[in-house]
């Protein structure tokens, strides 16, 4: 299953990921990304990769196990 990674230090709270995949990404009150899941099923990969690519500071990755 694709594993989700987030670089909280790089995150700037632009929140494109939350808009693209609200079931996977959220941000906290300080505007820092929160992963709602550690991994996603293979059929979600394309959608979640697209959400990760919408991060302006490349703080998100979808990796293989």
């Amino acid at each position, binding site marked *: 299953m694709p594993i989700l990674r987030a670089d909280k230090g790089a995150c700037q709270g*632009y*929140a494109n990921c*939350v*808009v693209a995949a609200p079931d996977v990404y959220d941000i906290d009150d300080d*505007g820092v990304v929160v992963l709602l899941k550690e991994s996603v099923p293979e059929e979600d990969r394309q959608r979640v990769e697209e959400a990760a*690519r919408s991060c*302006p500071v490349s703080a998100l990755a979808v990796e293989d196990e």
Partner: protein
Amino acid sequence: MSRTAVVVGSSVAGVRTAQALTAGGFEGRVLVIGAEDAEPYDKPPLSKHFLTGAWAAGRLSLLNGGPSDERIELRLGAAAEHLDVADKQVRLADGTRIPYDVCVIATGASARPSPWAARDGVHVLRTLGDGAALRRDLLRGGEVVVVGGGFVGAEVAAAARGLACRVTIVDPLLDPMARVLGPAVGPLLTGIHERHGVRTRFGTGVVAIEGTSGDLRVCLDDGAVLPAATVVVGIGAVPNDGWLRSSGLDVANGVLCDEYCRAQGTQDVFAAGDVARWPHPRHGDHVRVEHWTNAVEQAACVARNIVRPDEPVPYRPVEYVWSDQYDWKIQIAGSPARATDHTVIGDLTGDRPRAAVAYTDAAGRLAAAVTLNWPRALVTCRRLLAAEAGFTEALAELDRPARARPAGRRP
């Protein structure tokens, strides 16, 4: 038979289209043609982290070498010169003809050139080369004059201040940010410059720039002359559509597209990003949007419509743009320019306010929102805008988190 997708432009729109094509099931070849020699890079940091030196150029790369990137072919340092729609070919400046089955125009925009000519030392900021040259000059120190109080001008001023330069911003408008932020927030951003020691000469135009790098003079329409070591002119951008003049496509301030981002009158030519003009279903007219997020979302829509031509989806984004100035995070969703009225949620006063301004339109819907240092509220607004929520309903929803946590608290 294998198909070839040719993406013209190594902009973020071009690269993200190519990535979405390979990741989204496009079986054939995906080729990205870029006019610049540099590996495709991202532009927002050029006026922020790159200019201050916090990020090196390597961090700006748009390709990360993942599985979907490996299938993308790059042809860099190759400017496209002509699009032959009938023969389905792109001609490059060196005469090479590249046949395509589907073409995506993503040539982006260029900085509007400075109308004032000095021998040297007058910068614009759009490319990596521009950023490196400006950074070199800023590091010499001395007076910096920034012409244009929009996003680029304001971010350059903040970055130059961070490099210990003395900075003045000049703009013919009294409240330059009001154009994009609306009247409630615009004046606050004049205040933030002054608080950080950046002088503003708003409501004053430039008539001439004279001299040479290190010893420039910026002549203003009120008779004042500002000495400067370095001048930066940030007065907007123009779409890179000149190469399409011979194509027969409908080009006027961008490539005219249909609601699916297909160039008008074609089946196999699309456009994405700064260079595309399309009829936005929510606005009822054609728009061209120069924001980063638009480039990324439009790229995804174009790729989707190429991979699934039988069920194309219209492109109807909620506009979103951000600006980082000093320690403020300014985020805008929707278009405040179309609004008729606004309500402030939270408190706009203080050194670093945490607040939102919600704008409504004639139909009583939420039309736009500007948030200061409050990303979570912006997420709520983007969701409400996409759902075309009524203004009253939107205010009620925004008010909840505002009450849960007092405005003005620093993170």
